[in-house]
């Protein structure tokens, strides 16, 4: 009987099995940010266990609220900073070098096929795009990860989702994942790993795959995995070239983690995207999804382009293409947050930031910012936003605010129109 990629990764990392159905996995990476890690650090200190299992496998960043907005967030940064220093965690990214965790860690080459990764952040599933098993956890699991480099998981079942067809012009990875969530609902993949397959996924670059994997948790999934291929190798090559004799050699090594043809899946769904239109959410659940064309007259107060879902270079390029030569609507506040300093400076070199600014957007430093309503663009009661983020929960971007999740193209077009609107890139 064949195995899925998740089963192969589990097998390769098994440290212990508890009571038959719980796997204790050895971790290759523990990622940390300043919101959920300080509580873990404080608890470890109070237990007299202020240790780390391996400073080289722990990577940390201040990303959610940066620069600090008040003394409490300043304290969270301080706790993380001092902890990183005291334990010799070299890969710690502070202001001037920091970006959104799920964008900066892959960009630094910290994620490889076959890895096991945890973080105290639900969108850790993003790193599954590289063929890794990456899962969000709570503070206690994070603590144990930091201390011992292990984490428990129930042996996962896999939901195979094949995305096939020809993607229409102006329809993007974000629209695809919204479609997937609509189809399988917000708990359709709870306690399962989603394996994204099909020709559309094969053709995607890593930025697009990360957008796809990022929102797997919005369908309840533990991780959202894409199989490693030459695209993965190309992305990682500058970081791994000393370890492998050639790209093919790297691919051969990574391929041992690809699912077997006769692997067994708990569920299976095929989605043909050939007729897909740009989509948006409505209401407070990520599976409340409909075509942008059916959302006439939704007046916007803010448009936010950024986040670990859609704050990467390609996202900014697409939005800038739509914005080029236009001024955004008077009643819209446009905010763009490039996800990392590297993306920021590339966008600057390519003139993308200028396009944003000329059209009336405010460009912020790399940060989570408005995405979770903690800084850099909180909504007021009754305000409506279109955002390239991943959660439209009630109050997510500010109490009483409404968030419509869209692709960068739709976000840019909506900023110009002042209403949720299809971009000119989309033609049926």
């Amino acid at each position, binding site marked *: 009987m064949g195995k899925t990629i998740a089963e192969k990764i589990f097998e390769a990392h098994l*440290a*212990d099995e*508890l*009571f*038959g*159905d*719980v796997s*204790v996995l050895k971790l290759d990476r523990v990622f940390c940010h300043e*919101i*959920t890690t*300080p*509580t873990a650090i*404080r*608890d*470890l200190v109070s*237990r007299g*266990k202020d240790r780390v299992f391996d400073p080289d496998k722990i990577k940390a960043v201040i990303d*959610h*609220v940066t620069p600090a907005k*008040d003394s*409490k*967030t300043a*304290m*969270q940064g301080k*706790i993380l900073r001092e902890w990183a220093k005291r334990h010799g965690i070299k890969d710690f990214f502070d202001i001037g070098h920091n970006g959104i965790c799920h964008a900066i860690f892959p960009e630094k080459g910290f994620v490889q096929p076959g890895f096991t990764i945890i973080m*105290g*952040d*639900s969108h*850790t599933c993003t790193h599954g795009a590289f063929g890794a098993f990456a899962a*969000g*956890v*709570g*503070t*206690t*699991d994070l*603590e*144990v990860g930091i*201390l*011992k*480099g*292990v984490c*428990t998981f129930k042996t996962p079942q896999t939901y195979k989702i094949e995305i096939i067809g020809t993607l229409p012009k102006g329809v993007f990875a974000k629209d695809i994942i919204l479609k997937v969530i609509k189809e399988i609902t*917000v*708990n359709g993949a*709870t*306690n399962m790993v989603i394996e994204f397959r099909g020709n559309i996924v094969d053709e995607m670059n890593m930025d697009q795959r990360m957008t796809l994997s990022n929102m797997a948790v919005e369908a*309840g999934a*533990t991780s959202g995995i894409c199989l490693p291929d030459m695209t993965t190798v190309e992305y990682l090559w500058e970081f791994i070239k000393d370890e492998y004799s050639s790209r093919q050699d790297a691919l051969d090594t990574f391929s041992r983690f690809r699912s077997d043809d006769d692997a067994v899946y708990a569920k299976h769904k095929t989605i043909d995207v050939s007729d897909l239109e740009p989509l948006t959410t409505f209401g*407070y*659940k990520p599976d409340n999804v409909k075509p942008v064309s059916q959302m006439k007259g939704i007046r916007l107060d803010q448009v936010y382009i950024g986040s670990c879902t859609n704050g990467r270079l390609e996202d900014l390029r697409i939005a800038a293409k739509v914005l080029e030569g236009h001024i955004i609507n008077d009643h819209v506040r446009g905010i763009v947050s490039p996800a990392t300093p590297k993306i920021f400076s590339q966008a600057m070199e390519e003139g993308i930031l200028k396009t944003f600014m000329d059209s009336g957007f405010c460009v912020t430093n790399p940060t989570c910012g408005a995405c*979770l*309503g*903690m800084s850099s663009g909180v909504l007021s009661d009754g305000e409506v936003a279109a955002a390239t983020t991943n*959660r439209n*929960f*009630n*109050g*997510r971007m500010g*109490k009483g605010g409404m968030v419509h999740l869209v692709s960068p193209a739709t976000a840019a077009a909506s900023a110009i129109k002042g209403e949720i609107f299809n971009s000119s890139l989309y033609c049926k």
Partner: protein
Amino acid sequence: MKEFKGNVLFLDRSDINTDEIIPAKYLTEIEKAAMKPHLLEDLQLDGFHPKADIKEKAVIVTQDNFGCGSSREHAPWALEENGIYVVIASSFARIFRQNMFNCGMLAIELSKDRINTIFKEFGKSNVQIAVDVETSVIMIQSKDQTKKIEFQISEFDRALIKTGGWVEYADKHY
């Protein structure tokens, strides 16, 4: 081990997310106690008044997919700080469920039918629940009736409840 019994708070909705249980703006707090006044502050549920309705409750009974969304362990902490150590639902989001057991608290899954029956028979009245972890039995009691319901949790989850959490266990074993 905690005591798992007391008055029931019925939340008749599915997909209650962790942003509703404890909004992101309180994530800057480092002390668990700071979560206490803000539990379920942003819950979207007709007729629900966070402060008054939470008072003196110890058990939540709710529908599908409780605790979805953000991984924040602040959600179980907010419950813990308010003395709510048990949530009974027809299903949970994975991370929330794990966080509950990691904190030595109970997240009990019952079938949809069971949950619907509980809501139908008890949902409108003052109800007490007592959970016996050892025998896996829930006793549910109102003025008019008492009912005994069996549930299942894994041996691992039971071990976490009994030893008081995953940190001590893991540090000893790995």
